[in-house]
Every structure is written in structure tokens, then in C-alpha cells.
């Protein structure tokens, strides 16, 4: 403690003094050596301390006594006799974020994996770098964290007994918008799904996530409740799931799951591992070796090459070609080319309703069998009725008639349930189905067009523009710029599918990756299962 900054007081003939630091936190007793041992020393020192104005607490008295007791004759005494109680400043409010916890990150990973595989997720760290979560994706109702209140401060006391004011703690000034609810106890609850942004004292959940680079190891897989824009591309084997997905660069062999739409503006090179599950419209520059299920329409710019797609809406491309692969479409289809001059195996199933066709195919024979059985029982009943009318019926006949009546009644109940279901299903299928294939430039030879149980292989190419649609008899017909060319059956090599032979008759399954259909000639043996699987695409 520098002597020149200290205040001195209580000088008793200059031999006993009290020095207080300028901050009033410490008071030191200074006693000259010649006073030590003086019988009046105690009184003199007490007088000096009292004169200094410091608070004479028990602690101060004890320290003075101790100092005098320990003083050595012939030496100046210097001892701290009073210390202030410093103020406790308390702590300001803060936010404790649950979203940074390993548990929340595990929850994110489990959400991402829930629709992709069946592997259970837990709170363990990710086993794969693909699973690392780099954005904080939240869902409505998630507890994001809590704002902790400030802890109160305590004033101190200086050596004179006066209060030392403690600075008041500050509330955490977290600001947020309606996307986050702050409850009375400070808990922060997500009000919408999206990505959580935290910027200084502001937090919000954004429905739009913008990734300025690639979806790769720097981002991990993405599972987002809102929309995503990816400024560059999506790397191999990554998974992106969101509402709307817009990718400006190339999508490689990735898994894209869009609840709404997917825009593959830079194309999608699936390399036989890429897949797309799109709720509504898939818009792409091109698709190459992609497997997918598209709930709405497909719009593409250049070509669809060797893809395995089910399109529940329509397909439209002004200049694009469908080359190779298998495409199933429910709605209208307008493209520039189908097939290739090299004879790439291209199958296009039109007017197919994969959501309902398999169910209708299952239900139809059931209803037919029920009706046939009903007719059979009715014939037998009429015969016995005739015997009863002619009074020639035996008791056995009468018992048989009772049994028939019961069986018919049971059958009627089944028919009353099954028949309207089938009729409703067929009505829905008819409403969904659009058989309208418009090809602007060329329908190449060897391409296969399928409709219902019929398959048609194009023998010689047709120059566009051509239109394939249904005539009044329900036959596929072809019309070109000159006019109607006749039924498709006459123009192509036709084959028939035996759907009873198919092992795959489930609904809403993606089509199997199988070779395109063959025909009943020596080189191309019939393979009804792949055809059927393709035709119903489910």
C-alpha cells in the first residue's frame, strides 16, 4: 500500500497512527517502536483508532489486541486491523440453451433417421459423419432452453461502516419474435418448425434455411421443417429432407425427401443410388439414374435417363427426352422424345394410378367371386323353391333351403361392403387417370408404351408431333400431324400382361429395379412380373 495515497489519522503524538487506503477497504495500524512496551500504549492506540473514525467492531478490537500481543520490542508495529466487506455483485440473467445439449442433438439425428431407416437412435454420438447435425432444426413444441433470472447483489461495508453499493444485476435482454414463446418461468418453446438462429441477444426460428455451399460433411444430413435453398450441390450419400428443396447445383447420389416440391436446377445424377420422394412437383434440369416417387407433376428441361420413377401427376417437358428406364405416369405426358435411336430400353406406362390400381386389382376378383357364388346359390335356391311350390320338397330340401338362405344373407352382407368400395375405387381411378401422351419430335423404335394390362412395343419410330390417347372404345390410338393413324395395337407389337402371375401386388411401394419388359419371341422371353411391377409401380 503506497504511503502517499493513504490517509492518516488518529496521530497520537505521532507515535500511533491509523492509515486507511483511499478505497476505504483496509485500515492499518502503525505504531512506533518506542511506544511498544509503554504502559499507556494501549490507551494511546485506542485513542488513535477512535480518532481515525473506523468502525470499532469486535473484529477490529481483536486484531488490535493481537497486533499488540505480537509486537516485538524495539520494532515498529504495522498491522491491518480493519478490512471492508466487499459488495457481492450478483450475476446477470442469461439463457441456458437446451438445443446445445447432446440429448437434443441426438433427438435431431433420430428425427432425421426416422424416415430413412429403422435403426433406433439414442443419445450416443453419431456413428457416421453423415449424421452430424450442424444446424439446429426444431419442431413445434420443442423446449429450446430457458432464460435464467439474475441473482441479487449484496452491498458491502467499508472500514468506516458505511455501505459499499453493489452494482445491480442485469436481466438478460433476449429478444425473439412470435416463432418462440417465452413462458412465465422463462422456458423458451418453439412455436413453429424451422432452423433456430441465435444472434447476440436475438433468437428466432426461420422457416427458410439457406445453405451457401454444398450439403456435405460441413453440414451433415439435413432434416428441416421449412424450406431449404442450397446454393451449390448435394454430395453423394447425403440426405436432405424438408418442405421445399431448391438446389442450384448438382445433386449427386443423394436421398432427397421433399414434403412439397424439389427443384433440381443443376440436375440430379443419381448413379443408381439417388432417390427422390417428392410430395408435389419435381422440377429438374435432368435426371440420370434416379429412383423416385413424385406425388405431383414432373417438369424437366433436358432428359430423364435410365430412371425408375412413379409420377402421380403429369409429366411435362418442351424439349426433353425420356431415354431408358421405367416411368409410370398417372396424368398427361408431354415430352419431345421417348426412347433413343440406339434402342435404349424405355418403358412408359401411361394412365396408371399406382395408388389405387393394385387395390382395385385385388378387390375386383373378390367381388366377381362373391357375385358368382351368389348367383350359384340363387340357382340352387330357385330349384328348391320349385320343389316346394310343387309340394315335392323333402325335409332335407327344406333344411338346405334354410342353409342357402343363410349363406346368401352372409354373402349379401359381404357384397354390400365390397361392391361399393370397388365402384368408388374405380371411379377415383377414372378421375385420376389421364391417357394423353404427346410426343413432339420422336417416339423411337423398341420403346414400350403400357396401358392397363396391355403393352405395346414400338417397331418403327414415329416422327412427331404425335399424340396417343384413348378412343371411344377404350383403345389406344395414335394421331400425327396428318391425322389419325389407327389403333396402337395395329401399329405396334402388342402383348398382354398376366397380372395374376405377379408376385408384387402391394400398394405404394416403389417399383423394383428390373429389366424392362420383353416380348413373346424367341430372343425375348416373356417376363410378366417385371412388367406388372412396372405397370402398377407399387
Amino acid at each position: 500500500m503506497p504511503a502517499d495515497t493513504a490517509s492518516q489519522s488518529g496521530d497520537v503524538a505521532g507515535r500511533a497512527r491509523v492509515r486507511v487506503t483511499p478505497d476505504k477497504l483496509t485500515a492499518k495500524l502503525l505504531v512506533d517502536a518506542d511506544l511498544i512496551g509503554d504502559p499507556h500504549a494501549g490507551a494511546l492506540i485506542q485513542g488513535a483508532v477512535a480518532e481515525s473514525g473506523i468502525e470499532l467492531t469486535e473484529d477490529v478490537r481483536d486484531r488490535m489486541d493481537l497486533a499488540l500481543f505480537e509486537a516485538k520490542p524495539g520494532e515498529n508495529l504495522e498491522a491491518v486491523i480493519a478490512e471492508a466487506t466487499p459488495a457481492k455483485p450478483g450475476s446477470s440473467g442469461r439463457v441456458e440453451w437446451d438445443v446445445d445439449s447432446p440429448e437434443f442433438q441426438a433427438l435431431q439425428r433420430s428425427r432425421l433417421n426416422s424416415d430413412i431407416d429403422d435403426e433406433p437412435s439414442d443419445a450416443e454420438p453419431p456413428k457416421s459423419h453423415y449424421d452430424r447435425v450442424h444446424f439446429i432444426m426444431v419442431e413445434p413444441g420443442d423446449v429450446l432452453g430457458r432464460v435464467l433470472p439474475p441473482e441479487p447483489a449484496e452491498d458491502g461495508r467499508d472500514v468506516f461502516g458505511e455501505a459499499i453499493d453493489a452494482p445491480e444485476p442485469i436481466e438478460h435482454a433476449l429478444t425473439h419474435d412470435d416463432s418462440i414463446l417465452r413462458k412465465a418461468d422463462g422456458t423458451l418453446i418453439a412455436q413453429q418448425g424451422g432452423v433456430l438462429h441465435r444472434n447476440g441477444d436475438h433468437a428466432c426460428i426461420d422457416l427458410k434455411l439457406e445453405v451457401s455451399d454444398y450439403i456435405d460433411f460441413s453440414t451433415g444430413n439435413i432434416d428441416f421443417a421449412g424450406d431449404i435453398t442450397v446454393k451449390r450441390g448435394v454430395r453423394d450419400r447425403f440426405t436432405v429432407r424438408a418442405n421445399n428443396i431448391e438446389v442450384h447445383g448438382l445433386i449427386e447420389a443423394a436421398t432427397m425427401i421433399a414434403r412439397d416440391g424439389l427443384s433440381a436446377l443443376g440436375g440430379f445424377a443419381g448413379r443408381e443410388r439417388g432417390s427422390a420422394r417428392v410430395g408435389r412437383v419435381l422440377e429438374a434440369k435432368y435426371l440420370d439414374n434416379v429412383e423416385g416417387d413424385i406425388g405431383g407433376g414432373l417438369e424437366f428441361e433436358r432428359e430423364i435417363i435410365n430412371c425408375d420413377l412413379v409420377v402421380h401427376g403429369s409429366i411435362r417437358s418442351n424439349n426433353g427426352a425420356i431415354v431408358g428406364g421405367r416411368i409410370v405416369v398417372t396424368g398427361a405426358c408431354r415430352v419431345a422424345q421417348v426412347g433413343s435411336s440406339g434402342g435404349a430400353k424405355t418403358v412408359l406406362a401411361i394412365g396408371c394410378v399406382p395408388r389405387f390400381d393394385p387395390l382395385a386389382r385385388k378387390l375386383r376378383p373378390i367381388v366377381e367371386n362373391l357375385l358368382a357364388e351368389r348367383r350359384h346359390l340363387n340357382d340352387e335356391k330357385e330349384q328348391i323353391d320349385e320343389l316346394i311350390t310343387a309340394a315335392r320338397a323333402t325335409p332335407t330340401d327344406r333344411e338346405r333351403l334354410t342353409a342357402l338362405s343363410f349363406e346368401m344373407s352372409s354373402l349379401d352382407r359381404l357384397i354390400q361392403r365390397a361392391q361399393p368400395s370397388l365402384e368408388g375405387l374405380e371411379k377415383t381411378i377414372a378421375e385420376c387417370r389421364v391417357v394423353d401422351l404427346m410426343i413432339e419430335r420422336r417416339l423411337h423404335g423398341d420403346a414400350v408404351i403400357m396401358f392397363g394390362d396391355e403393352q405395346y412395343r414400338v417397331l418403327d419410330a414415329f416422327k412427331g408431333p404425335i399424340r396417343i390417347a384413348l378412343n371411344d372404345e377404350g383403345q389406344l390410338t395414335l394421331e400425327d400431324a396428318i391425322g389419325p393413324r389407327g389403333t396402337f395395337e395395329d401399329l405396334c407389337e402388342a402383348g398382354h400382361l398376366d397380372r395374376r402371375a405377379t408376385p408384387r401386388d402391394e400398394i405404394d411401394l416403389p417399383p423394383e429395379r428390373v429389366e424392362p419388359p420383353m416380348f413373346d419371341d424367341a430372343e425375348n422371353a416373356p417376363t410378366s412380373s417385371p412388367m406388372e411391377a412396372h405397370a402398377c409401380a407399387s
Partner: protein
Amino acid sequence: MRVMLIDDSKTMRNIQKGILTQLGHTEIEEAADGLDALSKVKAFDPELLLVDWNMPNMDGLTFVKQYRSQGGVSPIIMVTTEAEKIRVVEAIKAGVNNYVVKPFTPDVLSGRIDETLSRAAAA
């Protein structure tokens, strides 16, 4: 409710059982003829009996008489091909409460069962 079905035809018993099940009666005992039924009634103590007339070993009419003579009071429906009036009267005299002539439809049998049970409840 405990219901006993007495008919030599398993098909007929199944039909009657199906109707009774639809009506909500699931506690059902079956017997193939009158003798079989007599051996079971004490233990099962039915609250309703559906009895065929023509059966081997012991016909339905004999069963009804013996059941009543043993103090059986539960309602009995005769389900039979015997449609002549004199036969119906004979059955009713023996203690039958209601009568269903084969062939019958499920609706007719369930109607008769309801009717018989209502009458028995009112009595």
C-alpha cells in the same frame, strides 16, 4: 343368456349359432338329438332352447315332453320342417312356446327368438 341348440344337422346348428351370435348370445350349448340334450340340460341349465322335431334316438317332441315333465320351464322354440297345423298344435300342447318352419331366413328366426324372449320376460 344360455341357449341350447338341439338339431341333428350340424349345418343347421351352425346357422342358428351364427344368428344367435349376431344377436349377442354367445353362451351356447349344442346337442345332436333329444337324448344328448337331456343329458346336458341339467348341467347347462339353458334359458332358451331351439329344438328340431325329426332327430334320431329321441325326436324333438319327446324331448320337449320329458324336459317339461322334469320341471324345465325355459322357453322352447321348435325349428322344424313339420308345417302342418295339427303338428304345430301337438307341439304347443307338449310345451313348445314358439314355432319356426323350415326353410326360414335369418330374419325370421331372429324375430321369433326376440318374440319368445319378450313373451317369457312378460310372463
